[in-house]
C-alpha cells in the first residue's frame, strides 16, 4: 500500500552572510533553532515523529550524528530518530525525498527533511603531513622514536586546512566550473545581473507581503534574510568586478551566491496523518529524481538537473506547460540561465538522453519569491527552504497546481522534484 506524502509546511531561520550575525553559532545551534520553530508552528512539542533527516555539507567530525543530536536538543520527544544525509547542495531536497519515500511506503507517517550549513563554523582540519607525523609519534615505542617522528613535522604541516571547495576530480572550484559553462552557453553579463536583481526584488516583495510569516522564525535577533538587498539595481550590480572567468568574466559577487549561514526544515506527512490532526496539507510530493553528468569528462558541472528534469516530466506524462511554477536554485545567475537555455536546446537534451527538448519557460513562472542569490545559500539548507516555499505558493494557486524544483549540486549532480497543490 502506498500513501501520499504531503508537505504540511516548513520553518527556517533567516539566512545571513557567513561571519555575520550567526558567526558564533554552530550547525547544531542553527538547525536546533529552525527545528524548534517548526515544532512550535505545528504544536509538536514532546511528540515522537517517524524520523528527522538532515544534513550539512561542511561538517565537523564531531557532528557525525548532527541531526540526531539536534533532535535531542529540540522540543521534540527524545525518542524521535534521525539520520544525516549529504548530497552536497542537493542535501535539503534529498532529505525531503527520503522522508517522502518512507511515508509513501508506509514506514513512517510523519517526518522532517532538513538541512543546515554554516560557512562560519566550517571545520578546519590538520594537514595530512601533520596527521601522519602525529600517528607515527603515537605508535612510537621509545621516547627517541617519538622525538624523531615529531621532528618530521614541517611548518607547512601546521597550516590549518579549510574545507575543500574545489571539485576533487578537476581541481576547479564551483565558480570556475560555472565560468566555463557561462562562456560555453554565451550567457551575458546583463542578463545575469537582471536575474540577480529580480531575485532580490522578488524576495523583498515576498517579505513585505508577509509571505514568510509562517515559513521563517527569527534567530539571535535576526528577523529577515540578511543578505537580501531590496534596493539593489541592475546598475549597481553592473558596477561589480568579475570574480570568476578572468578579467573578461561575467560572474561577480552580485550574481553569485554568497557564503551563507542558515538552516531550514520541512514537515512532510502522510495525507492520513494530516487529516487526523485537522491540518491542511499544502502540496503533495509527486516525484523526484537525482541525475549526474560526467563533469570530469567535460560536461557542464551544474547542468546535472537537466536530464533528471526531462526524464521525470516524461515519466509523469507532463510537459513544462503543465507546471505553473518553477524553482531553479540560483547557485549562480548563469546556472539558472544556462539551465533554461539547455531546456530549450534540442541537441543538448538529446546528448543527455532525452527524446526532445524540455521547452521554454516563461520567466514570470520562475523563482517568484526570489531564490538563493537574494536569500543566500547555506548549502544543505536550500532544498529544505525551497520545498515549503514552493508548496505554499502552489497551495495559494489552488489544488492541482504543479511546481518543479531543480537543484544543481557538486559532483555534477542534480536533484529535481515535482510538487502538486492539494
Amino acid at each position, binding site marked *: 500500500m502506498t500513501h501520499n506524502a504531503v508537505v504540511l509546511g516548513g520553518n527556517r531561520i533567516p539566512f545571513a552572510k557567513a561571519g555575520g550575525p550567526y558567526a558564533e553559532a554552530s550547525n547544531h545551534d542553527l538547525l536546533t533553532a529552525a527545528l*524548534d520553530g517548526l515544532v512550535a508552528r505545528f504544536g509538536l512539542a514532546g511528540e515522537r515523529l517517524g524520523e528527522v533527516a538532515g544534513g550539512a555539507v561542511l561538517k565537523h567530525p564531531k557532528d557525525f550524528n548532527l541531526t540526531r543530536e539536534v533532535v535531542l536538543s529540540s522540543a521534540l520527544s527524545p525518542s524521535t530518530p534521525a539520520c544525516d544525509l549529504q548530497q552536497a547542495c542537493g542535501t535539503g531536497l534529498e532529505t525531503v525525498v527520503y522522508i517522502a519515500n518512507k511515508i509513501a511506503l508506509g514506514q513512517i507517517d510523519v517526518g522532517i527533511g532538513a538541512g543546515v550549513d554554516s560557512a562560519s563554523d566550517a571545520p578546519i582540519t590538520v594537514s595530512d603531513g601533520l596527521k601522519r607525523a602525529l600517528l607515527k609519534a603515537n605508535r612510537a615505542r621509545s621516547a627517541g622514536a617519538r622525538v624523531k617522528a615529531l621532528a618530521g613535522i614541517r611548518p607547512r604541516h601546521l597550516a590549518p586546512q579549510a574545507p575543500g571547495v574545489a571539485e576533487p576530480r578537476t581541481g576547479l572550484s564551483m565558480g570556475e566550473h560555472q565560468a566555463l559553462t557561462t562562456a560555453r552557453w554565451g550567457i551575458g553579463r546583463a542578463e545575469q545581473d537582471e536575474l540577480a536583481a529580480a531575485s532580490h526584488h522578488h524576495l523583498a516583495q515576498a517579505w513585505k507581503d508577509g509571505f514568510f510569516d509562517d515559513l521563517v522564525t527569527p534567530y539571535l535577533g535576526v528577523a529577515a534574510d540578511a543578505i537580501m538587498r531590496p534596493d539593489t539595481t541592475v546598475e549597481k550590480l553592473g558596477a561589480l568586478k568579475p570574480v570568476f572567468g578572468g578579467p573578461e568574466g561575467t560572474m561577480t559577487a552580485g550574481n553569485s551566491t554568497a557564503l551563507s549561514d542558515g538552516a531550514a526544515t520541512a514537515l512532510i506527512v502522510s495525507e492520513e496523518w494530516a487529516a487526523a490532526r485537522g491540518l491542511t496539507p499544502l502540496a503533495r510530493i509527486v516525484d523526484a529524481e537525482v541525475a549526474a553528468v560526467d563533469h570530469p569528462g567535460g560536461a557542464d558541472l551544474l547542468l546535472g538537473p537537466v536530464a533528471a528534469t526531462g526524464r521525470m516530466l516524461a515519466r509523469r506524462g507532463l510537459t513544462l506547460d503543465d507546471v505553473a511554477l518553477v524553482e531553479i536554485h540560483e547557485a549562480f545567475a548563469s546556472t539558472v540561465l544556462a539551465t533554461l537555455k539547455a531546456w530549450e536546446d534540442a541537441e543538448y537534451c538529446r546528448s543527455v538522453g532525452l527524446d526532445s527538448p524540455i521547452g521554454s519557460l516563461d520567466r514570470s513562472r520562475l523563482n517568484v519569491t526570489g531564490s538563493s542569490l537574494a536569500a543566500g545559500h547555506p548549502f544543505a539548507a536550500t532544498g529544505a527552504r525551497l520545498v515549503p516555499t514552493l508548496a505554499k505558493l502552489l497551495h495559494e494557486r489552488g489544488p492541482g497546481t504543479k511546481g518543479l524544483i531543480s537543484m544543481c549540486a557538486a559532483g555534477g549532480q542534480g536533484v529535481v522534484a515535482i510538487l502538486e497543490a492539494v
Partner: protein
Amino acid sequence: MTAVVTLDSPPGMGRSVARALLPSRASVARVPEHVVRLAGVIQDRARLADYSRVTGLTLRDTVPPTWIHVLAFPLHVHLLSDAHATVRLVGAVHVSNTMRLQRPVSADEALDLAVHATTPRAHRRGALVDLVARAEVGGDVVWQGTSTYLATGMRAEGTPQDAPHEPFEPRALQGRWRLSSTLGRDYRRVSGDPNPIHTSRVAAKAFGFARPIIHGMWTHARALAALEQRLPSTYGVEVDFAKPILLPGTVGFRAADAPGGWDADVTTPDGAKPHLRMRVRP
C-alpha cells in the same frame, strides 16, 4: 535595614580579584552585610555562544540558569573582596549550589543582579557561607541562586549542623566524559572565574591537588547540558560538589527520572564515587 551598594558597571577583575584571591589569615569567618547590585546587565551573545560550546549546551534565545550564575559571579568576587570580609574566594570550597529559574530568560533581556552573603554558620571543618544571588527583569525575580562555600578552618557561631548525606549507590553509568587539560582555561575564558587552582599546576599543588581541577560550575552546566530538552522549562536545581575533578581526567555520568525532574550524578569513571550530585525539580 540592609545597605545596598549599587555598581555602575560590572566590577573589574583587577584589585578586587587580587583581594578575593588572597587567602585570609583571620580565624573568624566574617562576610559583608551589604547587598551588591548591578542593574541593566546586557548579555553578550558571543560569550554565551562560547560558554555554550565549552559546556555542551545549545545556543538559544533562552539561556541556561548556570549562565546567569556566571553573570552574577563578578558580584560574588566583589562582595568577598570587601575589606570587611575574611572569607575569601581562594581557600573557600564551593560545596553546593542551588538555583531556580523562575521563567525562561532570553539572551536579549537586561538583567538586574544582586548578591549578598548570609551570616556564616558553623561546620565541622570550618564555616559555611551562602552567597545569594538574584536576577530580576523589571522587578520580577527571574532567577535566584545560592552558592554555599566552606571556609575551611574558620570559625563561626553556633554548633555544626551535620546535614545527613543521601547515601550514594553505585549504579550503571550512562555516559563518560573526557575532560581535556585545557578545559580549565576554556572555562576560565567564558566564566571569568580567575582562580588559578583551575589552570595552574603550581596553584593546584598549593591547595593540595596533584593537578588543576575543573570549576564545579562547569561540571554543573555540563550535567544540565546532558539533560537539556528533558529539563522542564522552569526548574530548580541543587548540586553538591562531592569531590574535585582533576584535569585532564575522565568522569562518568548517570541520570534517572525523579518526581517531575531528574537526579543525576557525575562520578568517578568506575561509577564508584560521586564528583557531583544533582537534583532537578520543576
